């Protein structure tokens, strides 16, 4: 049974489930680690937290620690498996002694370096971990020879790696070297990184280290971090794919009489700036009661002095800090479920330059490590709140897909560029209803041969047919009419990429003003097409009418040819929409393949869904359905068959026999690396035959490296 199973991914972040043993609690990760020892268990409010919030991992430092009844089924991390101790001097083992004492199946044992604390230089750090590696390997070899396996037994273990102050990248290399040795690679369950976030100045090194670890290690290793981790870092840590966060620092801060709020740490003296405690957790209510009691007697006493007089104020502070951490973590998980974690990260980024710098660094990397893994079809809103949002991976991925996958049909006669609107999808908004009316009026029967695209920021450019796909119909940005330089530059590039796809004799008519116009004008000179820009709607109509007249007269010259073409080749509006959406989702050409002779969209009883039917001489075929909320097309078995071999969205299995509804790692031979969690995917059997269609649980990159666990949910399969 895997201890750690990934349930969904989105970029680097992942939601997962931890279950250490059969019959124990299933926890939703990312979550917190709370330490316990005999002393902490004596604090009633602390044990109350442990009882009331079941979704936490408990950490102990003494293997013989008595576990209270209410924590019996909680996963426990045993963090005290040094190897030299316990006899006078003889180098001892990490696990052998423990094995004699029978390992507890609910524990995750973490092997630590020989010296529990302190490095004076990097060389010493290296030596310590070289020694550690040697000893751990020796020990695992011994266990392997004795029992024939490591990971299937009751030993569930991990490694504790402590970072020294600088040259973090080199240390990560060393860690990867340790983890990539044959015995450890296949059996390790958890990795604890300590001190990595102690010095936030080295944000580049930290991000590089995390990316390096993510790319080199098996994805089903639990990554936990400990050390001085401030509370506002939680969303960011979840965003870069950390599963467990040690909360000891918050407790320690509390005992040091430090009061943590959402964005800061206050000492007793600084609480007077807050005027009073302003939180409503049980600990704070207790403090408030005590404050009021004293205030009744001595009304003029400053708040910090009152707090100083309260006897157990540090315990209450510690409990408050834990409460706050748990709440924050719940908040993070809620945003992950809603798929809006990026928004929370951008929101909390203002607390620390580290997060801002790291986000900028991550977003502007080339090639961007997140974009390929970024989940695109979501149902949530995308709020672009800061200028960090211009490089949001979701935005970048959308831009990239429009650039590489969306092409205007070959029979297009005219290209129109329009400004974006407040209401989404655009065509439902008042302004766009007006535009559409004008275009329909002037174009008449040539309407479907006019390409429309909407210029916007930060998405750049949205072709009309994919205006209801995430994030085109879901983003929101504050509009002031004033565009900054970066917006104009990026939008200009997107416009250029789009206009390049048209023939040179096709006229481009733009109803654009302000920043929209600036961005078009910034790239205008690169085209020989006739570009007409207008800021007046009435003028727009006259121009359109005039241009359409020109086109009609040109078509009339070659009327016979046109008629022939119209009968055999012209696509209906719905077909064009299906083609563009299919191309956007599955790659170029897949749209044409699925349509066959003719296709239509039919509204289902559910207002959010539309069915796609293909019409052939032998009758109609159900090809799939379109979900309006995310713009994703879910193919039927027949639909999948049509685009089989026409696209990259497939996984290859080493078997033809797929039972049940979930596909697990052992059956996988290869998954395309462009795949993301939540993507529709074709399943290909051992003999390159099409056997079904499903939905990815994890990213393609993850699927290839996974040691065990679910890869996709099968939706339709060959019978």
């Amino acid at each position, binding site marked *: 049974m895997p201890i750690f199973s990934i349930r969904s991914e989105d970029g680097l972040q992942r939601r997962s489930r931890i279950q250490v043993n059969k019959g124990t609690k299933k926890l939703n990760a990312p979550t917190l680690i709370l*330490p316990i020892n005999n002393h902490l268990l004596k604090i009633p409010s602390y044990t109350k937290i442990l009882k009331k919030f079941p979704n936490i991992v408990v950490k102990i430092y003494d293997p013989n620690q008595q576990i209270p009844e209410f924590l019996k089924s909680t996963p426990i991390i045993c963090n005290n498996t040094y190897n*030299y*101790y316990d006899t*006078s001097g003889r*180098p001892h083992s990490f696990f052998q002694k423990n094995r004699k004492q029978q390992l507890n199946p609910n524990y995750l044992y973490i092997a630590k370096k020989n010296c529990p604390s302190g490095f004076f230089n990097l060389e*010493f750090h290296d*030596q310590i971990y070289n020694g550690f590696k040697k000893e751990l390997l020796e020990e695992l070899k011994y266990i392997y020879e004795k029992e024939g396996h490591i990971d299937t037994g009751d030993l569930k273990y991990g490694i504790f790696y402590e970072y020294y102050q600088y040259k973090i990248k080199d240390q990560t290399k060393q860690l990867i070297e340790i983890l990539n040795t044959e015995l450890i690679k296949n059996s390790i369950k958890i990795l604890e990184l300590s001190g990595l976030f102690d010095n936030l100045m080295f944000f580049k090194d930290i991000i590089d280290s995390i990316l390096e670890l993510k790319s080199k290690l098996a994805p089903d290793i639990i990554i936990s971090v400990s050390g001085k981790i401030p509370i506002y870092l939680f969303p960011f840590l979840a965003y870069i794919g950390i599963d467990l966060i040690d909360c000891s620092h918050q407790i320690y801060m509390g*005992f040091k009489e430090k009061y943590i709020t959402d964005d800061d740490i206050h000492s007793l003296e600084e609480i007077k700036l807050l005027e009073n405690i302003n939180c409503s957790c049980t600990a704070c209510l207790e403090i408030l009661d005590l404050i009021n009691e004293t205030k009744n007697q001595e009304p003029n006493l400053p708040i910090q002095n009152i707090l100083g007089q309260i006897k157990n104020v540090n315990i209450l502070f510690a409990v408050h800090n834990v409460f706050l951490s748990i709440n924050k973590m719940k908040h993070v998980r809620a945003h992950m479920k809603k798929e809006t974690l990026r928004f929370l990260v951008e929101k909390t980024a203002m607390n620390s330059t580290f997060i801002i710098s790291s986000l900028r660094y991550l977003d502007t990397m080339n090639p961007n490590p997140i974009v390929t893994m970024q989940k695109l079809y979501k149902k949530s809103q995308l709020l672009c709140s800061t200028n960090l949002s211009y490089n949001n991976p979701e935005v970048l991925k959308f831009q990239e897909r429009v650039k590489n996958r969306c092409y205007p049909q070959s029979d297009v006669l005219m290209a129109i560029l329009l400004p974006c609107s407040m209401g989404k999808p655009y065509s439902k908004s008042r302004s766009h209803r007006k535009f559409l009316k004008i275009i329909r009026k002037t174009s008449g029967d040539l309407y479907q041969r006019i390409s429309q695209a909407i210029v916007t920021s930060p998405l750049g450019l949205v072709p009309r047919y994919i205006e209801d796909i995430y994030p085109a119909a879901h983003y929101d940005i504050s509009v002031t009419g004033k565009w900054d330089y970066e917006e104009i530059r990026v939008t200009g590039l997107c416009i250029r990429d789009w206009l390049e796809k048209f023939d040179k004799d096709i006229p481009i008519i733009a109803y654009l003003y302000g920043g929209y116009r600036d961005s078009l004008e910034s790239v205008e000179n690169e085209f020989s097409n006739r570009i007409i820009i207008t800021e007046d709607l009435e003028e727009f109509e006259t121009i359109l009418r005039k241009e359409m007249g020109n086109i009609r007269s040109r078509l009339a010259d070659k009327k016979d040819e046109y008629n022939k073409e119209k009968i055999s080749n012209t696509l209906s509006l719905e077909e064009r929409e299906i083609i563009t959406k299919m191309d956007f989702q599955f790659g170029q050409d897949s749209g044409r393949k699925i349509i066959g002779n003719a296709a239509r969209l039919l509204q289902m009883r559910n207002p959010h869904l539309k069915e796609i039917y293909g019409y052939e001489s032998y009758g109609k075929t159900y090809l799939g359905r379109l979900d309006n909320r995310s713009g994703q097309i879910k193919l039927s078995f027949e639909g999948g068959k049509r685009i089989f071999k026409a696209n990259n969205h497939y996984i290859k299995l080493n078997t033809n026999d797929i039972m049940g509804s979930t596909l697990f790692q052992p059956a996988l031979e290869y998954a395309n690396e462009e795949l993301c969690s939540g993507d529709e995917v074709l399943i290909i059997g051992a003999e390159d035959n099409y056997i079904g269609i499903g939905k990815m649980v994890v990213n393609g990159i993850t699927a290839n490296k996974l040691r065990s666990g679910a890869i996709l949910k099968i939706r339709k399969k060959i019978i």
Partner: protein
Amino acid sequence: MRQLKSYKDIRNAIVNETFKIRTISKKKFKGFKRIDLSKPVATWIKEDRLRKELGYEFTIILRTSACRWARSESGGCTMCGYFNDRGPKDIDDNLVIEQIKHALKKHEEEIAKIKKENKHIILKIFTSGSFLDTKELSIDTQQSILDLISEIETITEIVVESRPEFITDENLRLLRQRIPNKTIEIGIGIESTNDFVREILINKGFSLGLVNSAINIAHNNDFLVKAYLLLKPPFLSERIAIQDAIDSIKTVVQMGVDTISLNPVNIQKYTLTDTLFYKHQYRPPWIYSALKVFQESLTEEIIEKVLIVCDPSAKGREKGIHNCKSRDCNQRWLDILQKFIFTQDLRLIQRESLPYNMCSCWEEYNVYLDSNYL
């Protein structure tokens, strides 16, 4: 030693660093010209526990050519900075005798006063090295120092310090002849009975077997043995350090020592602990820890057999054993510790009777014990 071979690299790294630090200290040293070599480094008299009664301690720290181990390429012990109080390598032995005379003269009145009170003195002669090392103090000098002391009646006990390799049968026999009536105790810095801790982390450079034979030799010649144990050597976390000290006390009692002195580490200049301290990788032990060690290791039987001593340097300060920043808290707990040492009464440090809830740092301490940060 054979088992510690796998730690060769770690050991080398520590030895290199300590040696480097010693070299720096040598470079920064301004020479002996400003130092009056005929005066000892320090002398003091204060209240202390003797073997059977309360009395006074008279400490003389002599300036000699310093510890041979610290001078060597090993760099010396990782927490020891007594090397800084050294004299020149070829210091004249007469000057050392001068120092003793100077000290005795300086405290003449106080000694006379103690004599009037009918109390006794424990004389501690420390050399920042080994008293019994013949290269540091020749046998003649050692003997003439003892001659000087033997005349003073109030001094009933004498403590000297030495590394175990210098404790030889021949040497001790000669010394015993000079002072037949006074108790002489030889302090050996065992520090920890865990080989890894002692030889790798502290870089002490001798095995437990050597200590055992030294104890036997001392006992055969009617000398007592005092074991110095270190609380929280570098590279150990607080909890492990406590466990280490507890184990060490138990082992040392079995080895048959007569006094156990628990020495909490204090940060001394030009040492590895100093480097670690400034890199926020080391914090001196808590007073709670010292008490915890005593609570968990000592029994009535041990107390009857062995004298327990703990006189920390830099106590209550940031660079010595301390609890929180509160002066009251530190003083309160140091008083408790001192009271226990003076009375050797285990009831005084029973967990139930101690005022743990008086200061908020007790909670902090209990989380600190387990956490990785310092």
